[in-house]
Each structure stands twice: as structure tokens, then as C-alpha cells.
């Protein structure tokens, strides 16, 4: 039998005004197992905690019940107090007589009666409590960053600077991500490459950072502190160690008709290629679908011209298995495909482009060498129309319900850059709302209007009709003037909604990280834990969590790094002791529990069981305490009751039920 002490808190008048605390003390004193009961003004105060410690020592208590506020508020406080007094912290139960009683009931008699019943339930439970000890698991001092864009690079740099090993896995041949495709960045109009390239170089040179480009995460197992990850290094067909990055192979490659991913298909690349000049690593990849050697067996020119002998047609995919303590997801975004939006004639006219395509057009290394020209005929445009919110803020199934957040600002940037460089070009922007919260952001947008004369029209475009002469007739509306507008344009730029990179679904599944209906990764708490996934040990960096611009991405990347560092800095992790526990004698070995476990914490083992004298080999369930999070799903699937949950055992809950229904 336990020796239980009951402590009833007044919480000032919060509880005492509606619950007769003295009466509660008098009644619970007679409950089975109770050897001590008292009340106090504020149990959570230093003095209140001292009362508990004193009672534990004097009455040799083996369990305590605190009748107070919600356990979500002070359970941890009282557990620590008990632990300091030499009691196992899991011998403490809370009866919630504030939120669930005094605050919602007015009648003192009723509330007091209920408080007594809640106290009885807690006492009945404590009677069956057993001391629990948090387990420990080790922490591998190495982090994995999935995605090599600005988010991934920044996170990796921050973690590495703190002294931990970091691996970056990037699926394309080079790190750099979307930012490397941008021309200038708002609100300061720095050249994107000028600020990104040094970071890429720094990452590549950092002794603590290993970069796997042209690689993908294949399999993840394990748990916080101890993940095991298989990384598939796709066959590059070029020996990384031998290649000097001279670029001759790309020049000589006869297959040059593959649309360049980097230039968003606006230009072509060779079959052996690096995506862009500043690529890191500066080692090309052979696109085997485009390569003549791979398609026909003939050619091999790149091999012949390579003085370093780096070309290796026989190279195979390679799987690298590595252990990590923390994983940061930084998979980024893409724009949606616009094939369902042909009222804007995206598929009909080369002069209707997305904003990301415009970035390439404006970029000196892009398909037009940075000259603003129509892609259909190379002519200099006179009128450019920007259409905002293409696919953003849509509740139909063509687009996405959210705001892409970055478009208002980059459109202002594009408009300004064009007007600055080509004052003869008229720029019109059709918008629904202009959203520019952020430091110096609205000022930036106003500059576009006030200093650069960009024509902002509140309203949408219904149709873009290519004309026989090659111009584009834009039919829109000016809602403030209540007029329909027909406007000739030479180019139309669509601010296309962004979506999480499609690869994220597979990665989220592997990590058991949750994902929302728009495929953005879910954060653990929208306000208080914005860079942590609900899955322990998994952190979020950049747009994979939600639309954000570069400054926000970099800030979040740093935050994710700090969270990862905080984890890696620990030598051991304490595990939740309220985990499932199988009774091997009762286990049928049927696997029902393993089928419902969301963490893969249950495995089966065949072992010799001594069941009251019968010794036989049996297949029995085993729970990995580091993986088990204590949901209890397994306990209910187990027909024999062999699987139970520590801290919330079948008998404990039954005892609470009995106490309440008594």
C-alpha cells in the first residue's frame, strides 16, 4: 500500500472561492492509502513546495496528489519538488480542481463534491503508480541538411561554425538553389550571385561541411539523436576527384539541345553540364537521357577531350549510409505549372513568362545575356504587363489557397529595375492587394510608383489574347475606376504561386514529419516552436515550412541551426518514461501492436520464455523506449492486455473510472 499525501491548493481565491478546500482535506484524509492531507494558499510557491517536501520526509510518503490547477501548468513544478525531496517524480498526480472545477462551477457544494471526486480519482491512480525512470539515448554529433539552397547553406554554415559536422544533400548537380537563379534581390537590389556565391564557397571550403550534390535521401530510420540515413549519390559519370572543372567537355559536347533547368527552359544546355558558371562543385554531370553515348553507344567525345581522364561512363549510383543526431529539412520551393491557366496564354505565347523566367531574362548570364527582350522575336518591348496572384489565393483546384508572400516585392523590384534601365518601357501591374509588410518594404514599393512611375492598377486580368502582329492584348479591369481595360503589351509577366518542392512529400514520409494540405511541413507550434517539426530531432528551414523571402529564410535557417546545435550539444537525451511495456508472458506475438505504432517502436524477437515452468521459444513484442512516444495505440489493439502503457496503465485508468463512478 502506498503512503499518500494530498495537498489542496487555494490558488488564492481562484479555487478557494468556489471549493471548500478544508472540507476536501477532511474527506480525502479517509481515502485508502492517504496518510497526510493539508491545504495551503499557493502550493506552487516556494513555501507550498516546502510543505510538500516536509511531508514527504516526515510522513515517509510514497506518493503525492496535488489538487490544484491544470497539470499542464504545474505538473512539472510538483514533480521537481518531489524529486528534490527524494521521491520519484512519477509518483506525483495532479487533480485539476481549478480549470476543470472551481473556474466553471458556481455552486460551492457542487464544486466541492466534484473536487473530492477528482481528488479520489488521482489518489486511486497514485495507489497504482510505480516509480518510473527516464531512459537515456545517445546523440550522434552530426547533422544532416536536406536541400542546398540558401536555407540549407546557411543552416549548415551555422551548425558547422558551432563545431559540429554537417552534411548537405542536394538533388541537383550544384548547391545554390532558387537564389542562384535570381538576378537582384529586394529591398536593396544587391546582385543575388554576389551575395550567394561567397556563401556557397564558404560552405564548400568549410572543414566541417560535406556536400553531397546530385544526391537524394533514400531511407531514414532511427530517432532523435540517432538517425541512420541512406543517401543515394546518383552516378555523375564524372570522377569528382579527377575533374579540374576546365569546361572543355561541355564546349565540345555535340548534344546541346536539352532545355536548361537553370534557365527555366528558356535556353539549352549540353548533355554534360554544370547548371551555371559558379556551380559548386564545379564538376559537370552527364545527363544520361540526353547523352548520345548513353543513347546510341557512339560518341564519347567528352571522354576524348578530357585531359584529366575524369569521364566515367561506367559509374554507378552509390549508397552512403551515415548517422546523424539532427536533421534539418530545407527543400525549398518551385513555381506551379501553369498549364491550367491559359486565359493568360502562357502556352500560346513565348512572350508570356513567369517572374522566375524574367529573373533569367534580366540576368547577364541568362538566355538573353541580360538584355530585356521578347523571347519570340528578340525585340525590345515597349509595354510590359505584370499580373499578380496567378494561382495564389485561389480556393479552386487550379491554384493554391495561400498568399505566396514574395510576389508583391519581387514585382516591385522587377518593375523598378526595368524602368531604371529602360525608361522608355511602360510598366503596368495588375494587383488584387499590394502586400508589403517588412522593413523598408512598403517604401520600396512606393518608390516603384513614385520615383519610377510604375502604373499599378487594382484589378485582375481576365484574358491575354495574342494578336496576329505578335503583340498581346490584355483584357483587365480597373476596379477603382470601374472600367474594363484593353491594353496592348509586348510582354506579360505572371507572378506565379510557389509551392513546396514536390520532393518534400517523400522526405516528410521518410522522416514521419507531418505535412499540411498544401505540402508545407508543419511546425511543432505555429508561434512558439516555428522551426521544429513535431517529430523530435527534425527541424525546418526556409520555404519548406511556408512562403518566405530571403531575409526571413536566412533568419529561420539560423534558428533551425540553433535548435539543431542545442540538440547536438547534449551527450545524452532523456526519454519519456511513459512508454509502452509488453508483458512477455502474455504476448501472443500477433504484431497487431506493431501495425498501429506510428514510430516503428515495436519490433518482434523470438526468445526463450519461461511461462510458469513451460520453457519455449516465443515471438514476443519489444518496445524501443527511445522511439516510443507513449500514445497508447498499441495497448488497445492487444487483446490479451499484454501491452500496457507506463504512467497510464490499464489498471490506473480503470481505478480512475471506478473512483469517478463510485
Amino acid at each position, binding site marked *: 500500500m502506498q503512503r499518500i499525501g494530498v495537498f489542496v491548493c487555494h490558488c488564492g481565491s481562484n479555487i478557494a472561492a468556489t471549493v471548500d478546500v478544508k472540507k476536501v482535506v477532511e474527506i480525502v484524509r479517509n481515502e485508502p492509502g492517504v496518510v497526510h492531507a493539508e491545504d495551503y494558499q499557493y502550493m506552487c510557491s516556494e513555501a507550498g513546495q516546502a510543505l510538500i517536501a516536509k511531508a514527504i520526509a516526515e510522513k515517509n510518503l510514497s506518493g503525492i496528489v496535488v489538487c490544484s490547477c491544470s497539470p499542464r501548468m504545474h505538473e512539472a513544478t510538483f514533480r521537481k519538488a518531489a524529486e528534490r525531496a527524494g521521491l520519484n517524480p512519477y509518483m506525483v498526480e495532479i487533480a485539476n480542481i481549478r480549470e476543470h472545477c472551481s473556474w466553471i462551477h458556481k455552486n460551492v457544494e457542487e464544486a466541492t463534491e466534484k473536487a473530492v471526486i477528482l481528488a479520489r480519482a488521482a489518489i486511486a491512480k497514485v495507489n497504482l503508480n510505480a516509480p518510473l525512470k527516464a531512459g537515456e539515448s545517445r546523440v550522434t554529433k552530426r547533422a544532416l541538411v536536406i536541400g542546398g539552397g540558401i536555407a540549407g547553406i546557411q543552416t549548415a554554415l551555422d551548425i558547422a561554425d558551432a563545431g559540429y559536422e554537417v552534411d548537405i544533400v542536394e538533388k541537383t548537380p550544384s548547391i545554390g538553389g532558387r537564389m542562384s537563379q535570381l538576378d537582384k534581390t529586394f529591398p536593396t537590389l544587391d546582385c543575388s550571385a554576389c551575395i550567394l556565391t561567397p556563401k556557397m564557397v564558404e560552405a564548400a571550403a568549410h572543414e566541417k561541411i560535406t556536400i553531397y550534390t546530385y544526391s537524394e535521401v533514400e531511407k531514414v530510420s532511427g530517432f532523435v539523436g540517432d538517425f541512420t540515413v541512406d543517401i543515394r549519390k546518383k552516378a555523375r559519370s564524372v570522377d569528382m576527384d579527377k575533374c579540374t572543372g576546365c569546361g572543355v567537355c561541355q564546349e565540345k559536347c555535340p548534344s546541346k539541345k536539352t532545355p536548361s533547368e537553370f534557365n527555366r527552359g528558356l535556353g539549352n544546355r549540353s548533355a554534360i553540364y554544370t547548371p551555371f558558371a559558379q556551380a559548386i562543385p564545379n564538376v559537370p554531370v552527364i545527363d544520361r537521357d540526353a547523352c548520345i553515348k548513353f543513347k546510341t553507344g557512339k560518341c564519347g567525345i567528352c571522354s576524348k577531350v578530357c585531359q584529366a581522364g575524369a569521364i566515367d561512363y561506367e559509374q554507378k549510383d552509390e549508397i552512403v549510409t551515415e548517422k546523424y543526431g539532427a536533421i534539418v529539412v530545407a527543400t525549398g520551393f518551385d513555381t506551379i505549372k501553369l498549364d491550367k491557366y491559359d*486565359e493568360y496564354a502562357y502556352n500560346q505565347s513565348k512572350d508570356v513568362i513567369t517572374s522566375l523566367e524574367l529573373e533569367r531574362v534580366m540576368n547577364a548570364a541568362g538566355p538573353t545575356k541580360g538584355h530585356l527582350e521578347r523571347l519570340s522575336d528578340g525585340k525590345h518591348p515597349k509595354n510590359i504587363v505584370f499580373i499578380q*496572384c496567378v494561382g495564389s*489565393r*485561389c*480556393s*479552386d483546384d*487550379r*491554384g493554391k489557397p495561400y498568399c505566396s508572400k514574395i510576389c508583391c516585392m519581387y514585382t516591385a523590384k522587377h518593375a523598378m529595375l526595368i524602368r531604371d534601365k529602360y525608361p522608355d518601357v511602360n510598366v503596368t501591374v495588375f494587383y*488584387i492587394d499590394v502586400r508589403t509588410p517588412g522593413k523598408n518594404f512598403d517604401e520600396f514599393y512606393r518608390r516603384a510608383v513614385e520615383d519610377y512611375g510604375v502604373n499599378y492598377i*487594382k*484589378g*485582375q*486580368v*481576365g*484574358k491575354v489574347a495574342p494578336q496576329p502582329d505578335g503583340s498581346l492584348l490584355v*483584357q*483587365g*479591369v480597373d*476596379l477603382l475606376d*470601374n472600367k*474594363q481595360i484593353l491594353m496592348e503589351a509586348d510582354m506579360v509577366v505572371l507572378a506565379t504561386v510557389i509551392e513546396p518542392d514536390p520532393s518534400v512529400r517523400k522526405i516528410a514520409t521518410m522522416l514521419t514529419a507531418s505535412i499540411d494540405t498544401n505540402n508545407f511541413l508543419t511546425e511543432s507550434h505555429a508561434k512558439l516552436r516555428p522551426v521544429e517539426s513535431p517529430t523530435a530531432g527534425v527541424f525546418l528551414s526556409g520555404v519548406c515550412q511556408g512562403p518566405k523571402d530571403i531575409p526571413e529564410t536566412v533568419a529561420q535557417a539560423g534558428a533551425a541551426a540553433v535548435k539543431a546545435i542545442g540538440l547536438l550539444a547534449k551527450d545524452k537525451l532523456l526519454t519519456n518514461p511513459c512508454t509502452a511495456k509488453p508483458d512477455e508472458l502474455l504476448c501472443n506475438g500477433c504484431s497487431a501492436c506493431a501495425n498501429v505504432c506510428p514510430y516503428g517502436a515495436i519490433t518482434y524477437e523470438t526468445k526463450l520464455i519461461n511461462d510458469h515452468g513451460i520453457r519455449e521459444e516465443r515471438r514476443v513484442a519489444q518496445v524501443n523506449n527511445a522511439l516510443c512516444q507513449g500514445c497508447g495505440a498499441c495497448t488497445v489493439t492487444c487483446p490479451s492486455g499484454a501491452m500496457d502503457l507506463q504512467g497510464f496503465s490499464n489498471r490506473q485508468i480503470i481505478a480512475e473510472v471506478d473512483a469517478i463512478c463510485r
Partner: protein
Amino acid sequence: MSHDKTKKQAELIREISGVNPYKCMKCGKCSASCPSFNEMDIKPHQFVSYVLNDDLEALVNSKSLWKCLSCFACIERCPRDVKPGKLVDAARQLVVRERGGDFLSADEIPEKLDPELPQQLLVSAFRRYRR
């Protein structure tokens, strides 16, 4: 029109049309798409406001009701699934049900006919213009 009656009619319009006017974000894509925009006194994107403000008097007296071509461009392109075209038709229904009032009377029609006019035009117009 009394206030109560207007309220009731606004509800009726929402019911007949099955449109939730609160979903509208005033982007104007309906008006940008509408081929009859210039003929209309109340513009497509404004229908929603009239229904939300229970200003049915103006709406049912609007000539816009009889200018809509039912071409569904607004319905197809509306990003918020508001479907202004449905509101127009509901308002039209309201008018013909309430007054039995036809937009065109039977007498007016013969002078507008020509021998090549397809049957389809007549039945469509018949259904849109009167009950």
C-alpha cells in the same frame, strides 16, 4: 421594398444561387473576363456587394441582369469559387418569379425575328428573358 423583404430576398438569392458571397476577395477577375462588361450598369464584381449589403432593389432593377450572356467565363475563372454568373441568374429568377415580369413581352418578339434564327436562340432567350 421594405427592409425585411429585402433581407429575405437576399437570402433567397444566396439560396437559389448556392453562392457564398463572403468568399469573394474582390479581385475583379469576373469583370475582367466579362464580354458584356461595358453594357452593364452594375458590374459583375459588384453583384456580390449588392447581395452582401442586402441591396436587392438596385440589383433586380439593374439592366445587367439582361445583359449577361451566361457564357460562364466569370464562373470558370473565379479564383474563389464565388461564381458571379450564378448570382445573376438567381436575381433573374427572383424577378421573373416575383413579378411574373418578362424582360421582353410576346408582342415585342416577332419584329426581332429573322428566318435564319435558330430555334436554340429562341428557347434560350425565352428561358433567360421570361418564365
